[in-house]
């Protein structure tokens, strides 16, 4: 019994090493940064509002055993294109935001379907394939936005088209829809503004994910996630189901990007989406998720820890070393370092799990004594 408890603790530490590592680093960096609790609380709320929806968009493909969907970048692009249009048409406020979401849907579905098709041809290498696919589609996106918009696709607004007459400017200002959702139902706690409406929307997504797990389709995805061959043998259309999971993830990523950018208020036309995939995935991993197991709780914890680290590490680094730019380097080092560690740990854990079968064998032998 005692041994069992000990095993559980070890297993817990193993599966949650990354979040624990983050908590420890943050605990040391927090006082060094010298930020007030109020500011940090405020910053965590802001980061949750911005990123949680995007991170949650990753859950379904993980459930379907397709790993971390770096292809969510495609959805982010679709969301951005929706935003470009509503900015051009000068649609403001909530109207604009929701219109951008609706506009992104057909594009997301198309891109998601394509991505799913390709990933079905690369079974077992989904993550790296979707990562490269993101790069590839980024090229297509740039072509469309930099050369297609204003020439083939009519864009009227001078404020977003380059003065040469075609191509979208480097930065599109989203003043029209800036924080339109966040400020719909503002709730003030102290000096911190809690964007109730955005949280409500995120809650709706969470409920959807939980509900979805209980549908036939969700059950099929879970089955595929555990063993594709078994699912196939039981008659589940594996290829189609995988595509659906990617499509849903892409559409959600598109919505997430709109929410993200309405909070930020400025869109870097050619770069905003680039890091979205990486950071969302990093946040999820930091929350204790792994390539084949992720829960809503992991997403929330991950966003809090990962972004807290982003907020405090530059200042902590600066105060520790005494030079501002070293703070920036420190942030990059710590943040990306921990991401690498979490990926490596995942691989180690997978090996360890294999070894555990052997340990079980040895145990079975001992029990018989």
């Amino acid at each position, binding site marked *: 019994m005692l041994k069992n408890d000990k095993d559980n603790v070890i297993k817990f530490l193993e599966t949650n090493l990354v979040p624990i590592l983050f908590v420890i680093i943050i605990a040391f960096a927090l006082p060094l940064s010298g930020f007030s609790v109020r500011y940090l609380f405020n910053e965590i709320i802001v980061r949750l509002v911005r990123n949680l929806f995007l991170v949650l968009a990753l859950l379904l493909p993980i459930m379907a055993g397709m790993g971390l969907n770096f292809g969510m970048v495609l959805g982010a692009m679709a969301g951005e294109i929706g935003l470009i249009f*509503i900015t051009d*048409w*000068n*649609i*403001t*406020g*909530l*109207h*604009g935001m*929701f*219109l951008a979401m*609706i*506009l992104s849907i057909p594009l997301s579905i198309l891109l998601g379907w394509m991505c799913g098709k390709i990933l079905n041809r690369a079974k077992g290498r989904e993550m790296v394939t979707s990562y490269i696919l993101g790069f590839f589609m980024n090229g297509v996106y740039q072509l469309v936005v930099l050369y297609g918009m204003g020439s083939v696709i009519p864009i009227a*607004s*001078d404020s977003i088209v380059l003065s040469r007459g075609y191509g979208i400017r480097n930065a599109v200002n989203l003043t*029209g829809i800036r924080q339109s959702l966040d400020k719909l139902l503002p709730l003030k706690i102290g000096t911190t503004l809690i964007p109730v409406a955005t949280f409500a929307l995120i809650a709706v997504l969470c409920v959807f994910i939980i509900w979805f797990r209980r549908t*036939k389709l969700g059950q099929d995805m879970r089955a595929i996630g555990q063993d594709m061959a078994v699912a196939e043998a039981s008659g589940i259309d594996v290829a189609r189901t995988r595509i659906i999971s990617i499509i849903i993830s892409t559409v959600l990523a598109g919505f997430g990007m709109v929410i993200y950018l309405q909070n930020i208020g400025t869109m870097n036309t050619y770069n905003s989406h680039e890091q979205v995939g990486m950071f969302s995935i990093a946040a999820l991993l930091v929350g204790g998720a792994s390539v084949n197991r992720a829960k809503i709780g992991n997403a929330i914890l991950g966003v809090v820890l990962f972004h807290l680290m982003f907020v405090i590490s530059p200042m902590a680094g600066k105060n520790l070393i005494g030079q501002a730019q070293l703070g920036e380097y420190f942030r990059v080092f710590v943040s990306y370092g921990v991401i690498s560690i979490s990926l490596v740990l995942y691989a180690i854990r997978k090996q360890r799990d294999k070894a555990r079968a052997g340990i079980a064998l040895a145990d079975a032998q001992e029990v018989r004594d």
Partner: protein
Amino acid sequence: MSNFAITGNVRIRRILIRAAFILFMLILAVFLFFGGKAHTLLLDNKTIEKEGKIYRELNVVEVRIGSGKEEELLKKDRVKIDVSGQRQVITVTFPGDDGNEKIIKKTFHLKAGVPMYLISIPAFIAGADGWIEPFEPSN
């Protein structure tokens, strides 16, 4: 056994429901398009001449569009305001001839295709027809 066979009736019903849903999304999109369309209003307090009539600028006037911020315009001021939606209400507060404050309130419609309008406050107060006109930025 769960039965996934779809009978004809159900199929037709589903096609109808899906079509209705897509239609709903389209209508919603159109509604969002017009409801959220933003326009730029230039509130102008300059002396202008229109159809032979001269409308004199006011020394100070307060203008509010919808429930927005009250803008105080001094002589020769031109203020830019962004509004969203096609139906707008303008409220102008100014000192009347008798020295008391007068308030004029009026509802007006904006066309979706026109991004910018120039509102001449003196003309508005005088009740002239052309108080609001589409404005082309001088590019």
